[in-house]
């Protein structure tokens, strides 16, 4: 597991990029944490820089939308989903488990 940051450092509506083999973006949606691949599947852009709207993130460049819970595309031009990663909160710290799909994700 990769430590990300204290929960207090990632307020609701915010996102943070985590350097892993493939970068991961971790989001706080009203107190729930979600982790997906950071790189948009459409073109090279960091989804951690994107616009969070409910449980979706919009790519900062070309407005592709992904569901933070499942990684599925919810808006074009992207067509390929992003991977999801399991998030664990322990003793006030957020961790991600790269390569382990989030619960409930495809």
């Amino acid at each position, binding site marked *: 597991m990769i430590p990300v940051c204290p929960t207090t450092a990632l307020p609701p509506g915010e996102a943070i990029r985590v350097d892993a083999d493939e970068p991961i973006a971790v989001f706080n949606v009203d107190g729930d944490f979600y982790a997906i691949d950071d790189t948009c599947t459409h073109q090279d852009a960091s989804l951690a*820089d994107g616009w969070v709207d409910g449980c979706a993130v919009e790519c*900062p460049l070309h407005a592709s939308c992904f569901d933070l819970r499942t990684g599925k*595309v919810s808006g074009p*031009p992207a067509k390929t989903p992003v991977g999801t990663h399991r998030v664990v909160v322990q003793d006030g710290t957020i961790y991600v488990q790269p390569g382990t799909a989030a619960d409930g994700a495809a």
Partner: protein
Amino acid sequence: MSPTIAVVGASLAGLSAARALRDQSYDGRIVVIGDEVHAPYDRPPLSKGFLAGTASLEDITLGAPDDAELRLEWRLGTTAVGLDHRSRSVLLHDGSEVRADGVVLATGARARRLPGGKGLDGVHVLRSLDDAIALRVDLATAERLVVIGAGFIGAEVASTARTLGLQVTVVETQPVPLAGPLGPEMGGVCAELHADHGTRLLTGTGVAGLVGTGRVEAVDLTDGTRLPADVVVVGIGATPNTEWLADSGVALGNGVLTDARGATTIPGVVAVGDCAAAWSASHGRHVRIEHWTHALEQPAAAVATLLGTGGPAPTPVPYFWSDQYGARIQFAGSRRDGDVARVVEGSCADRSFLVAYERDGHPVAVLGMNQPRLFTRWRRQLRSAVPATS
């Protein structure tokens, strides 16, 4: 018999309307009519990755794997030539018609051509996939490109052509490019981007004519300059495709006139995307918006109107982007003359900055260059600052 809705136009706005119909639980027939033979594709890459050859046709298709669930009846390669509002039928160029209970007008816009253009080879506009393929072929053997118009299309084509190794000259009638959308100061920064990357930008001069017999050889400017050219790209804006509606009874202006929710003057007919000019309370007039995000988002409200389930009119914050010379330019909001542009982060000289446009001390628009994260924050603030209208 199940009801039928005809969507006239098979690009982003038409496809978004069809998807919105299913999202909003419409279960009847949907017939999508498109004049191009191609399935819906994404236009922004046509001046960038697709033109450069780094993005394929497959990369830019808009269709998604689960689109089959939409149960759309495609009529591609089929031009709509009329709308009979009494029978609510869409008349097609082959003499057939599609009878429908509801119609979504999404016929988009076409590239404006140079007045008096002589049909010379080597002179291009860039709007469609076929335009982009033809231009790509021509650029492959060309050395000198002249781009007429320093708007977003012109600047992006110039940028792509530089990466392909061409000598590029851009001609702009205005003293500063992009002064309309971005204001003169920031237009000036975009002008410097051209110089940074070896593109020659000539401003404040018009085009007197094209030179050549059969194939273009040069562009004559109003100041007497003659620019030799192997290829010319004309990027001087777009005209809404509404002529086919002239006898339909649908009110037309600079586009199909609609209310704020997409309703035209004919019941059961809505209009979306680049062909539509929607009433804007804040502007006090109809406004036609050609932004990609508008074509993506606005159809949902128009479809709700068509289905009779429309809620309050949406008050979106306009947003567009442009990728030029590796710089990512993003703009949101509504700027007008008199607004004060203030650099709030970074510096123009570094080509990495965020500018807020202020009116009466309040931000009304924001421009970012190579600042996607900060830009997104400002864009979100602008959205939350826009009051909902009933």
